């Protein structure tokens, strides 16, 4: 079934002992949109993302990601999504090409297609001349672009980006966002977390998580209007002020 929603969750809840990390959240993400998943440190974003990416199971509630059930089909979900985070990206000791081959293999790209896809990807990044360089010797900006390209090498339906631009300077952040735009232009859905509130403005819709719940979800424009705020940063402040959890 070709659904227009690539993520749908209803009453999703995750408890650790008597601590409710994710508290009854329901939302959907439409095919082809950039969805910003915002919230303070400790609001429950990571726990929610782990459930959506098949790494952890909900205590209660249900949902589908890329059409697969998050309770029963987590292995299928993993094959149909891409994931990139600032913390884990590529193997620094391997060359650019080796990294690409490794991840293409892990993501199940058919062997006979691998070479063509890698060449195409390197060409688009203008990095063909660097294919035998070790990743750790590349400038940070290139590493990040490469890591993003690797995360969509198997043409997933959704790519999860967990703070992809943390600690990145303003120029490199913008270049990175243009890559996201390009991928979305080709039909991939992007699910992004960020602490940069200007980046929240680049999203089609954003959700704001406070104490495990989604307190607001709409387009950046509508949220600003609703909260009478001049910027998403202000909306964030208004909502974060209501938080009771201290991380």
């Amino acid at each position, binding site marked *: 079934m070709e659904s227009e929603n690539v993520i749908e969750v209803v009453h999703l809840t995750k408890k650790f002992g008597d601590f409710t990390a994710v508290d009854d959240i329901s939302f959907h993400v439409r095919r082809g949109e950039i969805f910003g998943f915002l919230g303070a*440190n400790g609001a429950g974003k990571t726990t929610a993302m782990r459930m959506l990416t098949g790494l952890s199971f909900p205590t209660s509630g249900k949902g589908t990601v890329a059409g697969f059930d998050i309770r029963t089909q987590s292995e299928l979900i993993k094959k149909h999504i891409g994931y990139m985070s600032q913390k884990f990206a590529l193997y620094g000791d391997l060359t650019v090409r080796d990294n690409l081959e490794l991840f293409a293999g892990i993501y199940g790209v058919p062997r006979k297609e691998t070479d063509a896809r890698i060449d195409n990807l390197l060409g688009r990044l203008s990095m063909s001349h660097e294919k035998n360089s070790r990743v750790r010797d590349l400038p*940070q900006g290139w590493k990040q672009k490469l890591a993003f390209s690797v995360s969509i090498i198997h043409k997933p339906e959704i790519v999860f980006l967990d703070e992809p631009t943390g600690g990145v*300077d303003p120029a490199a952040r913008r270049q990175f966002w*243009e890559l996201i*735009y390009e991928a979305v232009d080709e039909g991939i859905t992007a699910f992004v977390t960020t602490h940069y509130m*200007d980046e929240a*403005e680049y999203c089609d819709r954003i959700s704001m998580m406070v104490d495990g719940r989604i307190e607001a979800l709409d387009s950046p424009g509508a949220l600003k209007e609703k909260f009478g705020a001049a910027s998403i*940063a202000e909306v964030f402040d208004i909502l974060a002020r209501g938080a009771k959890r201290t991380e």
Partner: protein
Amino acid sequence: MDSIVIHSLKKTYGKGQPPAVDIRGDLCISKGELFGIIGPDGAGKTTLFRMLATLVSPDSGTAVLEGYDVMADYRKIRTILGYMPGRFSLYSDLSVRENLEFFASVFGKDLESNYGLIENIYCRLKPFERRKAGKLSGGMKQKLALCCSLIHSPSILFLDEPTTGVDPSSRRELWENLAQLKASGMTIVVSTAYMDEACRCDRVGMMKSGRFLTVDSPERIISGFDRRLVSVKSDEMFRLLHDLRGIGDVDRCYTFGETHHLTLKPGSRMTVREIGSVLAGKYGHKGVSVAETDATLEDCYMNLEEKL
């Protein structure tokens, strides 16, 4: 009075590599100044911090902190300096309180005598005193690291990207803490990827390829912006970005929150109205709005970058 005096500092790692830091001329940072460093990855920010913190020795040049030379008087400097590195460097297996006690004891201090300095920050950690540092969330780790770097009541504090991965509310709290420390007379040098943070500094040094390209107050950097800056919006923002770059008079165009910003080429007489009609006419954009706008520090950064 100067707290930090740098006189042409250079450091190269490995043969045939370009220098990581290559500061020519002098840079003085006053006592009680809040000095920000911005610049792309690989600009040399961390190497500079490490040299000033006496952890890496310079190949040439000198740096003097509170009258002490980083080479000759490194032992003395380590007692008057607080350094919070970019990577979490506390002991994950020790509890919050144990970490703090450990760092105090390293400097021959006890917790109580300097508690006043960290009280405002530590009060938020207090409920988790017995938790292992490795089990803290990102924002809490940062607070603890700051406490540990302050526990010996240093005269100078270095913070290497203290707010990476920290949410907006915690970032603001940290900067409120820094403002209080500054008010107590502490000299603070901080690197950051956030331009709103850089704006809170007395002066900002923009670093690239190991050198400072500009050192000035945020206000003066901004008032020195000498290009016409235009803010543009339409219903199709991604296509708009490419279309704007296709306009001959446009020099640079980049995303800027809910709008795109562009600078016009020197000498261009293109008006806001003309840009609007090209977008609506030639490119068929809907919901177009175009307006001249004032530069921010972020615009200065984006355009400085281009000049290099």
